[in-house]
């Protein structure tokens, strides 16, 4: 019933893409250019170029197709499975189109951009396969909002208890609550942790300070530490959650802009080939 994009319908697009790669490779091996080494200007070069261009435009169209909600009969998964396999197959088609001729020019720029787009996409596939499960395990059935609500509730309780435990401890608790930030800069989000976490620091310091509490307050001190420890655990879970989500999202910040760059450089490549060659 549930099928991953890779295994979709018995790997049908893997088979299609493999067929495409095999056919182009065989044709390339057999083909002997009339003049010079294999390159994009031969009949086969043009054919592969056209196929590659068509594929790129079709692959980029995915961004629009994905958002054409309620239209078209096919599942989006169907499209994505094809997008992945045919996108990977494009590496072979485009590389054969180059005839392995690279240089410091707009043509190679288009090729490099294409490779970067595909590489980022490949990372996307990896992220899509790896992180969903980790994310579910980390959440343990709670939604992010529930986790944040739990943290807020712990904060209220911690303030109440710490209010009766002297200014030092209360100050620590209050400062840590004010300073706590979830999310933040990209690197911190992606790492899924914060080495300078105020909650963790507060737990340690309150632990130290509570040693100095009078015996009558010791029980309260322990309760506060338990609350802070619970909060640290929740905060770490939320950070990991954000980290997983960031990993699943980050590659799109490369994949999509570079696709536009690719389309621009590809236009330059095609125009220059036809008008100035």
């Amino acid at each position, binding site marked *: 019933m*549930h099928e991953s994009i890779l295994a979709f319908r018995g790997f049908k697009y893997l088979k299609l893409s493999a067929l495409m790669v095999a056919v182009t490779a065989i044709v390339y091996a057999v083909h002997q250019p009339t003049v010079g080494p294999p390159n994009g200007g031969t009949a086969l070069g043009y054919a592969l170029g056209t196929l590659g261009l068509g594929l790129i435009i079709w692959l980029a169209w995915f961004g629009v197709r994905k958002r054409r909600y*309620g239209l*078209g009969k096919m*599942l989006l998964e169907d499209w994505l499975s094809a997008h992945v396999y045919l996108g990977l197959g494009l590496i072979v088609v485009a590389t054969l189109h180059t005839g392995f001729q690279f240089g410091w020019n707009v043509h190679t720029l288009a090729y490099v951009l294409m490779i970067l787009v595909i590489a980022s996409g490949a990372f996307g596939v990896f*992220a899509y396969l790896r992180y969903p499960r980790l994310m*579910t395990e980390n959440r343990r059935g709670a939604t992010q*909002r529930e986790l944040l609500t739990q943290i807020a509730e712990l904060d209220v309780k911690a303030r109440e208890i710490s209010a009766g435990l002297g200014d030092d401890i209360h100050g620590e608790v209050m400062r840590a609550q004010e300073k706590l930030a979830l999310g933040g800069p990209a690197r911190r989000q992606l790492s899924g942790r914060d080495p300078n976490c105020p909650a963790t620091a507060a737990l340690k310091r309150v632990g130290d300070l509570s040693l100095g509490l009078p015996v009558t307050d010791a029980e309260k001190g322990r309760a506060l530490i338990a609350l802070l420890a619970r909060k640290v655990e929740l905060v770490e879970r939320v950070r990991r959650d954000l980290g997983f989500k960031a990993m699943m999202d980050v590659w799109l910040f490369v994949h999509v802009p570079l696709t536009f760059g690719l389309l621009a450089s590809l236009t330059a490549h095609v125009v220059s080939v036809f008008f100035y060659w």
Partner: protein
Amino acid sequence: MTQLYKVAIVGSGPGGMSAGGRAAQAGISHILLEKTDHLSDTIYKYQKGKLVMATPDILPLRSPMDFKLGIREDILGTWDRQTAELKVNVKFNSEVTKITGKKGAFELTVAGGEKIQAENVVLAIGLQGNLRKLGIPGSDNHPKVQYQLDDPDEYADETIMVVGAGDAAIENAVALAKQNKVIIVNRSAEFARAKQGNLDLITKSIEKGLLECMYSSAPVRLEPAGDRLKHVLKTADGEAEVVCDRIIARLGALAPRSFVEACGIQFPSKDPTALPELSPTYESNVAGLYIIGALAGYPLIKQAMNQGYEVVEFIQGNRVKPADEPLLEEKFKKLLDRYTVDELLVAIQSTIPVFAGLTILQLREVLLGSEVRMPQAGETVFQRNEFTNTFFTVFEGEVAIQVDSEDRDDDVMLGPGSFFGEMGLISGRRRSATVIASKPCVLIETARREMIKLIKSLPKVRETIDRAAVERQIRTYLAPSLSRDDMDSILRSAKLRSFKSNEVLFKEGDPGDGVFLIRTGSCTVSRRIGDKEIVMSYVPAGHYVGEMALVRDMPRSATVKAAIETETVWLDGAGFRLLLDHLPDLRHRIERRIGAIITQTEDMAARPETGNLIQFLVQEGGKEAADMLLIDESLCVRCDNCEKACAETHGGISRLDREAGPTYASIHVPTSCRHCEHPHCMADCPPDALHKTKDGEVYIDEQTCIGCGNCERNCPYGVIHMSYEAPAKPGLLSWLLFGLGYGPGEDKKAVHDSHQGKKLAVKCDMCKDIDGGAACVRSCPTGAAIRVSPEQFFSLTNNVAQ
């Protein structure tokens, strides 16, 4: 010599008073006898300031007295004034104790001994003199159990349980709730008997939290609890106890049978709810003795007043048509070239046995809630697997029920008088067969609401339908080609057995004594493996359980438990074996099924976690779902494209909350409509804006929704929410290229701030208007979102575990 009146009217309620008014207007010698010292005692006893409804709205009023929606005091005032103006001859404090004689010479004995002579008598005594009692252990003559409420302001700071779902119960409950904690106890899951206005009132009050309602609950017994009362009730989830200070039971009233019978009037049955049989002119079996109003089977004020007018006309020999005549003429205009409305009613009653037990008045009401359909030969009436739930009766012609879609030889032909479509009515499941008109037909299609009202008020109709339904269910699910004789012998042993949620049908190890055909609800099958009860499978309505023990002649190999309130047809072992002996086909089918079950059982025993998953899905709505959205979280990349797709295809508002909802073993049940078989949301929609399509999608008609929020409150899965309309936003390309607007999906802030129009209920409609099906599923890039019906649970769990 005492005066001989042309007509003596007994009872001065709306019907009697209207009759008196008409008689005075027409200059007929008459006397109106009233037991108390004021007119219309039932309405006089209404709560102070009570709003009196004038339903049904479409029915015109025909009476010399005025009556429209208003406060009790105003209405009584108007009637008093008009009765005086018309010089109606009213005699108060005159309880009639005996009526003897015959047409032209009746003698009425009034308490105190006075005798009155009249040519005709109109009995308009209503039912309120004979209230129906709670009748549970501990309730008899209990001072804190009462059947009337005069002034709700008498009580304060009490916990009061109001039992009943009719108009009186609703009004009492709402009035008491001002100063007390009130719990209204409704035997069924909806307030089907109440007038529209009261329906609005109770649903709004429950929604606002002014009072609580216990649906599908029935009183069982009362026990003392200090100086309070412990009220034990049977609910859909088992027994419940509520401690309260007072119980007000408003359960309607029964005909004052002994008095009426003493007048010579016969009742059609011993059933305490039965009402006397009347001619279309309201004349009873005693010539010259007429009955109108509630005792005639019609409790509404307006109808009673119309009858009062009409009965006086009938007595004068004028054949007036009832006030709803034009409405019926409109409905049946295609047949009126052959029948008058009266002839048609008689013909319908004599042709269609289901409607035979109804009074003409009840029949008129049912027909007002029905449509006439006249399909040509070969035309489809409805398709197998449709979710429509109307009830059909054949008036003329013949239809073919295609029980087996492959084998047309097994078609069941139904001629005039038969009915079909009752399975949809009973089980809320899809239509189990296609029905085609085999000859040109005249069919009467009755709305579900109308039929439910009928089934509830007339147990005989329910029995008739049940009996036929059992046979058809056996044919549909077990043995399409069973011979008449075999069927009869099986039917003799077949019984209807109901089970509450979590009640056990049979236990592992019990001797196998019969087979259960599940006709409504659903069950789980579980076995003890090690020391744990593991759910092996889920069995929805339309399937049977318990056949294995009989075929193999061994004890029960599993425990079967109702997942939700469940009704079954039980066939005893001997009957079922007879089936097997006569139908080798069935035996093969069952043997094959048992083989599959054994394989499945072995498989499940090796992977008990899948059983837990089935259990989880059943609990999260699978037990009553037609369709559930499930997300495999190991595939879901949390892109929320499903929500965006939902919002983009549904006016900018998502009906799906992807993240919310429970998760078990990576299967997540998001907050999205389950499209229940008997939708809770539909139970209490005042404007009737919730509908089910023939494909089973439950949807809201936005044009009719009034935004009361009942459905939101009634949905146990929290999938309906109230929302303002979303403001318009720029197109996709403007966003994609120029970053204009919010982009795809619901702009929650804009919707929240929009205040466009009024908050209306929004829910998933399964993209019924969109080609290609559910947008959420189609827009999931990774295939994590799928929609499944409960029948697919097992294959789903198979897949997950692999």
